[in-house]
């Protein structure tokens, strides 16, 4: 029937452009081989542990501590990055000063610099005999080889995320909006705090969530500066490696599964923030 054929379920819209089968085939095959099979291998291994032994591995005191440290330090670092990231983005978008272009380019350094390099450099700086560490030591502040060191490393690693998500949104702020606030009597502080910053909230939260997610999983830059003291400054990814080296595969699998699960939740949160802000604020008309 004509009616049925016109509303028939279609996998794809017709198109004159060739190569769909090949391109999608390559994509799916590669995705399956590299990402899906290995990840489902992990899930499969952890389900074969059985619920009770899985839970006892996860609730092991050292594991719980490592997860708490990973998530706690990543959260603090993301908060630091949210604040400084917004300030940095503001300065880069709004003001002119010598060396601005270089600074702007440098923001991406943590993306480009291998994490191990960042790790040893930060350690050298913040160690008690390092440039910054030696300044802080007389004040009784220890950074390297404590959880504070982990935060420092994660601030470095997550620095670009907030800047790079907020910056384009800030660039697109319509000058008229600020002028509108001024014509209505708002002073500069009110304009920024009540009009501009709330508008940046979705982008800021997205950047925060990305920095947080990255911080939770970070390994290379942290292990040098952390001191890696069990229960104190041992992060979850490191514990996975320790368990692997002990050939304790079930424990490594269990920790990895928990982390994977939590980062999926993060991904979900990020996507919902973006969907929510698109629905509410973006100009659909």
């Amino acid at each position, binding site marked *: 029937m004509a009616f049925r054929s016109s509303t028939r379920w279609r996998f794809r819209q017709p198109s004159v452009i060739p190569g769909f089968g090949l391109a999608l085939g390559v994509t799916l095959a590669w995705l399956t081989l590299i990402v899906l099979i290995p990840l489902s291998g992990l899930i499969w291994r952890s389900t074969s542990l059985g619920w009770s032994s899985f839970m006892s591995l996860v609730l092991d005191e050292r594991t719980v501590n490592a997860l708490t440290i990973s998530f706690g330090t990543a959260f603090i670092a993301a908060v630091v990055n949210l604040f400084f990231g917004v300030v940095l983005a503001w300065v880069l978008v709004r003001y002119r000063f010598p060396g601005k272009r270089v600074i702007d380019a440098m923001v991406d350094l943590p993306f480009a610099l291998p994490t191990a390099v960042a790790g040893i450099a930060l350690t050298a700086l913040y160690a008690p005999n390092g440039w910054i560490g030696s300044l802080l030591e007389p004040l009784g502040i220890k950074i390297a080889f404590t959880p504070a060191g982990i935060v420092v490393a994660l601030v470095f690693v997550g620095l670009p995320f907030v800047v790079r998500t907020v910056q384009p949104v800030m660039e697109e702020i*319509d000058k*008229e*909006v600020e*002028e*509108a*606030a*001024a*014509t*209505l*009597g*708002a*002073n500069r502080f*009110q304009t920024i705090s*009540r*009009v501009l910053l*709330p*508008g940046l*909230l979705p982008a800021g939260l997205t950047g925060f969530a990305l920095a947080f997610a990255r911080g939770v999983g970070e390994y290379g830059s942290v292990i040098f500066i952390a001191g890696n003291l069990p229960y104190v400054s041992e992060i979850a990814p490191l514990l996975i490696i320790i368990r692997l080296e002990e050939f304790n595969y079930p424990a490594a699998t269990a920790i990895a599964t928990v982390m994977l699960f939590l980062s999926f939740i993060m991904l979900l949160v990020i996507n919902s923030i973006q969907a929510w802000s698109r629905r*509410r*604020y*973006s*100009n*659909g*008309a």
Partner: protein
Amino acid sequence: MEVRVQNIRKEFGRFPALDDVSLDIRSGELIALLGPSGSGKTTLLRLIAGLESPTDGTIFFGAEDASKKTVQQRNIGFVFQHYALFRHMTVLDNVSFGLKVRPSSRRPPAADIRRRALDLLELVQLSGLEKRYPAQLSGGQRQRVALARAMAVEPNVLLLDEPFGALDAQVRKELRKWLREIHDRTGHTTVFVTHDQEEALELADRVVVMSKGAIEQVGTPDDIYDHPVSPFVYGFIGQSNCIDVTLSSGEIWFEDRPIGLRAASEPDGVATLYFRPHDIELIDGCGGCLAGLVTASRRVAGTRHLEIDLGKAHPPVEIELPPERASSTDHTRVAFRPTKWTLFRKEGDVAAVSRQAEAPVSELARTGT
């Protein structure tokens, strides 16, 4: 409130956007700043608002020198071309923003702010939409929110920058009428910028025609249309024809013959004759007239437009006739004479005897009827 703009000059870099502009805006009137892009109309509006600072000159709000006040202190209402609504605030929060940011000594209680905002939303016919976000509104609705927001602060003067520029034709027409009604009901002194002459003539009490950073003419829509004071206004407002003519002992000549129009007090020399396409009469047999070949004929609504070639050296002129008159005339050749016309002369075109040299641009010569 009355607004007086005195000898305002505004330069952007070296480029003068406004050059010695003075304008008195009467309390409670609806006035249009009309001109092509680059004429300085938006700059003038932004100077009144305090969003730009003049290079020179003063702006008075009533008896007060507003030039010494910031945009926040001037208490104006500004409606931006693209509305500039705060997209993370609901309609209600947008409208109440101006009251909420007042220092606590001058801020009305929260309940009053809410009531005032709701009243304004009712005035602009948006009751029930107060919880929406700007993204959930149509263009016309956003326009009205922007107006309500600007009016919420009880502004000294309401300034609108191309208020209908971003809307499609249908909505535009409706909102135009509606803005006039709102103005008549609230009585705010209102200045709006437009490049659309129809909008300006239909809506405004007075129209300010601007060109190249200067005011060409200020007047009622009737004045502007019926008595344009410069070739620019003649050309910019409505349709017009211009032809080069010569004056000789009070008689207007086109090429080698007089066209039956007299400008008795004018000195001899060359001049430009302006007339509107509909201000003409057809003449049977030509004893002093303009005549030419009809090169094109178009029916536009209730009239027929004829394009007439007066000779190679001249641009074609257009005349408008009632359709029945047009069809009764000879289809190839038409003789006519302007019934209302104006003569403009450029400096230097006037013969040496002219006494008008002291005027900076001695354009205005004589208007005939």
